[in-house]
């Protein structure tokens, strides 16, 4: 199954740590916001208004510009029943769609298998970062995990000339030798997949030119790599990267850290979108930004602690921009276990992307039927 340029592509940017939704899409029109955030709040006159009730944190300027063009869907109050406030566990739940037991398969791992059941393209999915997030894990499904796109490959520590010889030897050693035993054969095919994938990916950096200059942060550079891979037309359908080190976990000094994080992310999103436009690719790419939970209604004097009921963003030409779902109420009697009450399940968000954007059947991939949101244009 070959992919044309117009096969829909999904990009996921994971904001690890639990982004503070209240200070990202700010309910500045609600007195309860000022009451509950005596220290850690965005002053009303700094908010970039969307309407009389909510507005953007001022550091999301570039995202607001895209929002005003209708390219951004804001998904409010997203979560799941029995919210879990552990980073690992909650992120696991977002990755595996299993809120009640430990899952080992990722929703996107399953999606990759649905898109490319015979693994004909070893690069159906590429992750940027070290290790593999569980969202992409599915036994038997190859996923390239790239720490550094410029140097990605097998035996990259070797000098060029030696490396060419070594890779030649490698490809002979690993080419299918039937009947060496199940594990040895598995190693051989895995090695060949990796070599093929690395070979193909090396083209991406060579072919890419752009007028867009991305920032220097890890997130910016990985999003740039993602743009390089998309525009190289390698048939990659899913791309993933993660903001590192749980950076959004702003228990303390939030008013220092949070602005910087969002200045970086929103500029990066804007650069990425512009880059796609430049390459005529913005109509077949959708970008999801998500986090594992929101934060507590009341601040702790310096930052905010783990809560629930967060915000997700979906970006792209195919997106019906605007506010989706509802902003959770801050009224004490409406809270869930003391935190913002989610009003839509993240698996509905996933199902919308899987079905309305990628054209797959969402139920087996997220483990059930969940109400979709209307943020993808028909």
């Amino acid at each position, binding site marked *: 199954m070959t992919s044309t340029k117009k096969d829909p592509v999904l990009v996921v940017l994971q904001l690890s740590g639990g982004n503070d939704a209240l200070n990202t899409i700010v309910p500045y029109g609600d007195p309860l916001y000022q009451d509950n955030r005596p220290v850690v709040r965005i002053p009303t006159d700094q908010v970039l208004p969307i309407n009389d009730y909510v507005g953007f944190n001022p550091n999301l300027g570039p995202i607001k510009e895209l929002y005003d063009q209708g390219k951004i869907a804001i998904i409010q109050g997203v979560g799941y029943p029995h919210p879990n406030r*552990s*980073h*690992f*566990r909650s992120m*696991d739940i977002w990755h595996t769609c299993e809120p009640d037991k*430990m899952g*080992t398969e990722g929703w996107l791992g399953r999606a990759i298998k649905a898109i490319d059941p015979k693994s004909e393209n*070893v690069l159906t999915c590429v*992750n940027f970062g*070290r*290790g*593999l997030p*569980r969202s992409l894990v599915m*036994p038997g499904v*190859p*996923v*390239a*995990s790239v720490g550094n796109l410029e140097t990605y*490959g*097998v*035996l*990259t*520590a*070797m000098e060029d000339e*030696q490396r060419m*010889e*070594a890779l030649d*030897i*490698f490809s*002979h*050693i*690993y080419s299918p*030798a039937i009947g*060496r035993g*199940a*594990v*040895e054969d*598995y*190693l*051989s095919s*895995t*090695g060949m*997949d*990796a070599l093929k*994938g*690395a070979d193909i990916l090396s083209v991406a950096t060579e072919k890419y030119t752009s007028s867009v200059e991305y920032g220097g942060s890890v997130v910016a550079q990985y999003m740039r790599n993602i743009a390089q891979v998309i525009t190289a037309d390698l048939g990659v359908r899913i791309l993933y990267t993660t903001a590192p080190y749980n950076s959004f976990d702003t*228990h303390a000094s939030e008013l220092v850290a949070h602005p910087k994080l969002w200045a970086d992310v929103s500029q990066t999103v804007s650069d990425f979108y512009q880059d796609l436009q430049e390459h005529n690719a913005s109509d077949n790419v959708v970008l999801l930004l998500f986090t594992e939970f929101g934060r507590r209604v009341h601040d702790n004097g310096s930052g905010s602690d783990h809560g629930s009921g967060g915000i997700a963003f979906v970006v792209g030409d195919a997106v019906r921009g605007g506010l989706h779902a509802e902003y959770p109420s801050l009224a004490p009697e409406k809270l869930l276990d003391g935190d913002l009450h989610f009003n839509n399940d993240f698996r509905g968000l996933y199902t919308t992307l899987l079905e309305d954007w990628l054209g797959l059947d969402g139920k087996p991939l997220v483990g059930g039927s969940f109400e979709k949101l209307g943020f993808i244009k028909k």
Partner: protein
Amino acid sequence: MATQDIALMAHLMRRAGFGASYKELETRAAKGYEATVEELLHPEDQPDISLDLLQRYFTDWKQINGLETNQTYWTYRMINTKRPLEEKICLFWHGIFCVGDSKCMSGAQILRQLNKFRRNGLGQFPYLLTELASDPAMVYYLDNQMSHKDAINENWGRELLELFSLGVGMDDHANYSEDDVKVCAQAFTGWTIGNAMPRYPYGRYEAMFLYNPDDHDEAQKTFLGETGPWNGEDVINIIAKQPAAARFVARHLYNFFVADEPQVPAWQKSPPRDPQLIKMLEDEYFRSNYDIRSMLRVLFNSDSFKNARFARVKSPAEVVAGTLRLVGTFTSPMPGLHPIAQEIRYMGQDLMNPPTVEGWHTGAEWIDSGTLVERINFCADQLGDVTKPGVQAIISRLAAEGRTLSPERLVSGCLETLGGYELPAATRDRLIKHIQKGGDVSTSAQDFGNRVAQMLQLIASTQEYQFA
């Protein structure tokens, strides 16, 4: 010194430890196989790592709190321990008696648990289970502090039976019933923790096990067919007597030390690969009063073990620690070990934080297209560096063999010094041809070291090198 003796010793050291340099292999082979097995089985006779020394360099290691700091510390231990089997048995039990930092959120508390495995891991199985049942990190991880006389929480009771001592079933029948799970949980009511383990807001302090008799269900209970007012220790003693316990320990020891078996959930239906060795281990389990050391003595001295070379895919810890032991770096406290310890995580083994209470899937499941590249690149990077003392030692050893080396000898020499690896004929021939292209190998030539290092890299990239 026969090459076969060295190769056999390399096999023993890879399995009972994390491998060894050729020099260490020669010393140990001279001592003799059985004598070496005895030495390995008594780690307490060797000096321990000096934590004092480490704390003078890493002053925040007075209490090693963070997950990644603990992983760095553990990697240092695996590289430098003079008690290899103690570290290996700690890794062994950690992969079975799983707790995860994702829930416990206290590296220091998990380290205290691991130290129990170091101290008691070669001792009696029921004693180890009692240590585990009263370990605060385990109590907390499996919610036993929420199990009460009038409202039990089955999590610990179930996992003790299913994952820590008997397994779901053997020889195609079940080992325990749901009633046994409930009774097990009832027996352990009152086994709680005296204080919580938060990092915030009260800082870091040691969690304490607490036995609360008021919350303990004293009633008569029937567990695995035996009736009495059982408490936790009684249940453990009944467990230890079961043939299923013998099978459980034997199969796990086999899977970790001898050869890869199917994943654990398949054990109820799939028989052991080597029923004879398993039977020997089970017999020794009962004969020795449930002693792990005795079982390992039988295991290491068995023909099955000696013939099981390269029958296991290396775990990430073995890939990293084994390679570092070979190249001879980080033998004293110095910066730079943290990113290397994180490689173990990138290869799929987040030490002290397994994905679930079931632990890691081992064997071929360590390998996917991402982790295979990490493993190959890491080993090639380390072994290709001629400035590393271990690589220099290999180069010197080969240089001392004569003024020139035949291409065949260069290849076989590298395979020997890496620990007796064997390659299929097609692969060997390809490597030999590669050397032949550069002409005869002169050991005094300037590029000799580089040619050796490159050969080590090529060997490290083969499928065979993924096995131990």
